């Protein structure tokens, strides 16, 4: 107890620094995957991507980032065993943050494809096992999180498969694809606004004190859907046949309709990323703040302060504007093979899956879900070539990241414990 009162401010400051470091890293590296598809397809410029990311990462974090933050903060570790020594949990959270951020930095300089989510979960487990004991890990919760890492890309893939099939049926395989593209574009854009806002608003936003009934959520979502659809219609209404481009590739004009549609899915991706990945950085921070400010209450019954969500969103934006935009440009240049019609389907599927997971409080990997969604497009025979080796790489990166995060967290935990006593 005395440690918390003596070093409370230092510990919170450390947590803020580590949290910012972690969210900075997420913004610098991870966000590029979420937005790179739209950049690569030529739907948005890098400047537009930055503007979209700033607005929607923030919105995602603040509006829908609460549940996952709560899982990271108190869902993985059961601290009842150390109720008398709350400082242990504070060290643990600090160590986990530092371990995950550190591991991400090593991995990204080496060019390994690791996930921020997996790093922080691995770190939390690592700390809990040595700091409290193996029983302190809520293994059933951990297993549901791990299961979601397998299930979520599959769901993303299934949704994008269906979306690709629908675009084929409604637009591509018809007598006048361009006319149908312009007719159905507002509907697809409606779906983007509707689904994302429905999932976000469903049953209200308790941390912002907004209570909504199911009916009210539906009404709001329909309103948002119509709003996005109207904006979208404005973009696509004037697209005309371009005979010279169509001679080369008959679907050139049709793809032009999908291009502005990817603007909306880019917003959705940024929102989804903010809602899920910001928690990896601020979950442990929220835990430290809650324990210290409550004077050592390990069960963390206090609500999540809004400033922490804002801080997390800010950290991601900072990472993006300092370094992330360069990474985004590099990623965008490499994934030009995804045409707007495919990119739209993959992004909408991925954003939907991520936001669903966020609402359920499951920390998932946005990148892996996007990979799953692109594979869904591939299974619908929609892409020239996909290299399945990536799937193996992802599995290997899990198997390495979980223990690596854990071991580093153990190391940092004992270091912090040694420093503060």
């Amino acid at each position, binding site marked *: 107890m005395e440690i918390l009162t003596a070093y409370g401010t230092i510990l919170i400051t450390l947590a803020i620094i580590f949290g910012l470091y972690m969210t900075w890293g997420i913004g610098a*590296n991870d966000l*590029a*995957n979420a937005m*790179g*598809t739209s950049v690569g397809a030529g739907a948005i410029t890098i400047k537009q991507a930055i503007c979209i990311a700033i607005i929607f990462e923030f919105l995602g974090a603040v509006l829908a980032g609460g549940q996952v933050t709560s899982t990271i903060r108190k869902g993985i570790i059961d601290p009842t065993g150390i109720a008398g020594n709350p400082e242990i949990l504070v060290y643990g959270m600090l160590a986990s943050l530092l371990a995950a951020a550190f591991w991400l930095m090593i*991995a*990204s*300089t*080496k*060019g*390994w*494809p*690791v996930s921020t989510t997996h790093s922080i979960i691995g770190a939390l487990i690592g700390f809990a096992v040595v700091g409290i004991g193996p029983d302190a890990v809520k293994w059933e919760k951990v297993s549901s999180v791990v299961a979601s890492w397998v299930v979520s890309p599959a769901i993303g893939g299934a949704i994008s498969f269906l979306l*690709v099939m629908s675009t*084929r049926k409604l637009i*591509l*395989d*018809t*007598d006048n694809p361009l006319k149908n593209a312009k007719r159905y574009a507002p509907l697809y854009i409606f779906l983007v606004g509707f689904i994302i806002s429905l999932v976000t608003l469903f049953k209200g936003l308790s941390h912002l004190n907004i209570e909504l009934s199911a009916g009210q959520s539906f009404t709001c979502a329909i309103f948002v859907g119509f709003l996005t659809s109207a904006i979208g219609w404005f973009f696509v209404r004037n697209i005309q046949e371009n005979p010279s481009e169509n001679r080369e*590739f*008959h*679907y050139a004009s049709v793809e032009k309709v999908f291009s502005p549609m990817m603007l909306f899915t880019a917003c959705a991706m940024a929102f989804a990323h903010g809602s899920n990945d910001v928690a990896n950085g601020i979950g442990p921070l929220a835990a430290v703040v809650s324990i210290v400010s409550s004077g050592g209450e390990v069960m963390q019954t206090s609500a999540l302060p809004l400033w922490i969500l804002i801080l997390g969103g800010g950290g991601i934006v900072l990472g993006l504007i300092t*370094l992330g935009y*360069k*990474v985004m440009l*590099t*990623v965008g240049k*490499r*994934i030009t*093979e*995804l*045409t707007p*019609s495919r990119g739209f389907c993959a992004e909408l599927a991925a954003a939907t899956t991520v936001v669903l997971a966020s609402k359920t409080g499951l920390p998932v990997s946005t*990148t*892996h879900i*996007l*990979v799953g969604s*692109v*594979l869904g497009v*591939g*299974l*619908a*025979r*929609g*892409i*020239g*070539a*996909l*290299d*399945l*080796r*990536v799937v193996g*790489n*992802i599995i290997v990166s899990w198997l390495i990241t979980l223990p690596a995060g854990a071991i580093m967290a153990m190391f940092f935990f004992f270091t912090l414990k040694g420093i503060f006593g």
Partner: protein
Amino acid sequence: MPIRTTSPLSRLLRKSPFKPIQEHMRVTFNCICTLPQLFEALFEQEREKVLEYSEQIRQLETDADSIKNTFRLNMPNTLLLPVDRKDLLSLMADQDRLTDICEEIGKIFTYRDMEVPQELKPFLDELLEGTIEVSGEARKMIEELDELVEVGFVGGRELEKVSNIISGVRKSEHNIDTIIKRTREALFAIEAELKPVDVMFWYKIIGLVGNISDQTENIADRLSLFLSK
């Protein structure tokens, strides 16, 4: 700090294999289109030009070869493709055979200064014209590949369009078979007046030109495999 992308997405999305196939076909078509000029130079007995066109064909064959090799290097067996990988590799091999045939014809004319018998000329012209036509159709068919990817190799309209081109290729090939038969008959009729070795080579050349259309039909057959459900 060096910018290293850790993005699994950039590794997942490979370059489309259909683009190099189309590019290869364009080069191949150019190669075949050089044949009539080569024969024309031969008719005119312009040795310089014969060598020049043979060289041009050889150069195009080399270009096509390098496209083929890059294509093969980018086809690991871990790829998820909209069509069977083996079929794609065979399609490329079939196309490559076309440039090989052209090169072989060109080579014969470089080491053997041949004279064209007047009686054979109209038949050869007709044969070459037919060959250009059928390979033009094959090129048109290959140009449809990116549209086929867009609709995922299913769906009525695009498939019907490609099927029509395929049956066009088959029809032209059949037509060329009859031209070849007539050309051989014409050669047989004047056989006795020519030098025996010349005759042997002319039969060989007629056969080689005929192989081009046979091979084109193989390409059409290969493509129709992609469309089968």
